[in-house]
């Protein structure tokens, strides 16, 4: 039983972060399965999902890490920031506290990821229009001030979910082409498929150990 030949040319690693119950797991599920989970259990630690998308004619495999929003899992989830090419920061448009916590999520992200990591802000549950607690303009301004991409989405209806994930990938891909993102950096969160020459082939490295051997 051999694995199928690689059907993609890059792997991008994403993380999804934000307060508990903002709908991170639902967003991931909507993106990977195109379904809404109405009674989703709280995430313990981390979960992950994958999907191959098409960006600028390239097949890109997204490996997405969905983290737990609860404070007590912070120690576990922090180790997944390292080496993320994209970070989706989610708040709940119907709960202001989740919006207020964004700055601390942003600080964590900036501290734990590399400078080239693309950060995308998502205001989730946009379907609950009559319960809105955070104005679009306010969040947009926050995003602009901090140089984040921003969209309001709904994991329930699927509105803008695809866009958020794909736009992030496009931006990352742009960074690769501009040379702003170094593919060979260990924590870039981007990997070429194994047979590609661009990938660091281990034998090429021909390590010259400093000891005598």
């Amino acid at each position: 039983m051999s694995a199928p030949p690689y059907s993609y040319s890059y792997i991008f690693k994403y993380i999804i972060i934000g307060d508990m119950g903002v709908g991170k797991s639902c967003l991931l599920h909507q993106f990977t399965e195109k379904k809404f989970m109405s009674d989703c259990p709280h995430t313990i630690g981390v979960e992950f999902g994958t999907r191959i998308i098409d960006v600028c004619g390239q097949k890109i495999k997204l490996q997405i890490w969905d983290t737990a929003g609860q404070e007590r899992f912070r120690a576990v989830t922090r180790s997944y920031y390292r080496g993320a090419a994209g970070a989706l920061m989610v708040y709940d448009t119907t709960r202001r506290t989740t919006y207020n916590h964004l700055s601390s999520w942003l600080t964590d992200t900036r501290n734990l990821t590399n400078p080239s990591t693309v950060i995308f802000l998502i205001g989730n549950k946009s379907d609950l229009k009559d319960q809105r607690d955070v104005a679009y303009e306010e969040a947009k301004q926050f995003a602009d001030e901090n140089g984040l991409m921003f969209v309001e989405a709904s994991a329930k209806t699927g509105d803008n979910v695809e866009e958020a994930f794909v736009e992030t990938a496009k931006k990352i891909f742009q960074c690769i082409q501009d040379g702003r993102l170094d593919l060979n950096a260990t924590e870039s969160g981007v990997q070429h498929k194994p047979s590609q020459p661009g990938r660091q082939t281990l034998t090429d490295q021909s390590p010259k150990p400093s000891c005598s051997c």
Partner: protein
Amino acid sequence: MNVLKKASLRIEEADLKCNKLGCTYYGTPQCEGFCSKCYREHLQVKQLVNPTIHTAPAQSSQSSYKSLFSNFERKKQQQQQSQKNIKLLKFGSFRKNIEKTDDLHLDLMQAFSFSDSSNELLRLRETAQLIFCETDQNVETDTNKCVHKYLRKMYADVDAANKFKLSIDDLSMKTQNFYQAFSKHMDTNKIYADLRPEQKERILEYVEKLCMTLLHQVLFCPLFTNDEEMDLAIQKRIRQLNWVNASHLDCHIDEMNPSARDLAFIAMLELTNMDSIKTPPDKLSCIVKCCKSIFKLLQQTGGGPASADEFLPLLIFVVLKANPARLKSNIHYITRFCNAYRLMTGEDGYYFTNLCCAVSFIENLTAESLNMPADEFENYMNGDVVSTSTWESALVICENMQLMCEHLSMLANFNERHDKLFNEAEELKLQMLHFKEEVKQQVHDIIEKYPLEPKRNPRMCGENSISDVVHVTQTESSESSFLFNFSDKPSSSKNKTEDLISFSSPNKVCPPTPIPKHLQSNSSLCSLGGEFDLSDHSTDNSQTDDLISFTSNDFSIEHNDETVARRLENDEAETKKCENETAPTEPAVKVNSVPEYRGFSSQGSNIPSIPCDTGSTLLANVQSPHIKNSYFPLPYG
């Protein structure tokens, strides 16, 4: 089937042993019930039969699971001495030297720069220093040489595997062979001859951790296997089984008891943590910590020593609730790349085997294994029926309670700070009032103590061509106090009045052009608060100088509040000054207004702080009828 269910959940040590008769090592479902040693033999035989097929472990977990459990039945009959296994949980001689390390050698870090230069490597380097400081230099050199050789070969092999020329099992076998060869090398090579067995064991463990830290990136969940798919499958399966609770599994955990909840929670956390750790021995120690927490929980609930057959259900419950990331990848990685001896015996092996059983159970769980009607099971699995698990609610309540406590303590903190602020404001107010009184008192005392003498300073008169408003008024004040003090001496009084007239007449002409020098020094006095720069004071005005130096000395003792107090004084002084300012204009004609200067003299010491405002703002009012009115009704007016 019910019997099987009981059997599957109640496992004794014998049931966990290798499939091969007579072998005492632990077997795992991933290795078709064999221990890893027998499994490799088994594989080799298989490959001889059909060399084109690479048999992956856990390819058919269904059958391996069955073989494992049918295995117990058989062994139960075979092994009569299983009674002694009841005490299997009291492990006596477990390896104690599993240091919590993860990490490497700087030489290697530079050589293999593509691997993460994480602090895992730095910590591993510390471990190396501890080990090799006790040994001969050659030991370290030779160990590194062996590691390099293995790593180089491995990198080439991984490349081949990426092109599907090698399978992950080949890589696993090569790695296990390396561990064995290195172990043998240590036993035979004379470089290592002086080492104690436990030193060799530590070196072996270090080598294992070093290699696996460096290779984790390429050997964990590699792209050339289907590990990731399996991870996704079990993750989904566990999510589907979210409705299963402790009572379904026949295990009892008091979800509302905080300490029980904490222990269960720690167990989950340890298991969740496993994925983010790089080396197999460290991953194993996460499993061990998880299981130990479960045992503590069992002891607490049971009120006595825990029995092994209560353990597995609880472990299954923990795995179901934690849904650890990349569960299969982790199990595979440990099975393939952990030094096999570790998994075959001892605490690590025992707990790891239990975890593998728990995973197998979850993968193969049916209505029967939970002892529930098939349609009910289906309803749950399809999500048609939703059960609210107490565990879930407990977790959420827990988090919300935590949030609430956070907010409460924040509120309390605000409250405290508010009270403090309020008290401080009150205190400040009191201090200000007190200060005002004090200053008044001091001024009074000074005037009492140093009555202003009518000594005429010739210099003052001589230089009065540059005299300014303050200067003049100052002089006037001393004159007036003189006048007051010696009012019953008409002759001198007359003299002074003449002086007054002569001084006040230029005043009348030039009040709008006060001499800046003095004004500046005075304004600096007003605004600087505690700091008094007296250097500006012209020496020509000895009397004024005296006064200023007195007051400034007194002020300098007080702190900043002074400015505030001074403002208060100023307010008062200003109103007085309004009256006084008019004095030079009128008394020039009316000599009998002299006693009016009394006020001036009593305020004399405050004059330095006044003029900056009065000079400009009051001048406009000097001729205003209002002031004149307020002046004329006075008794002497």
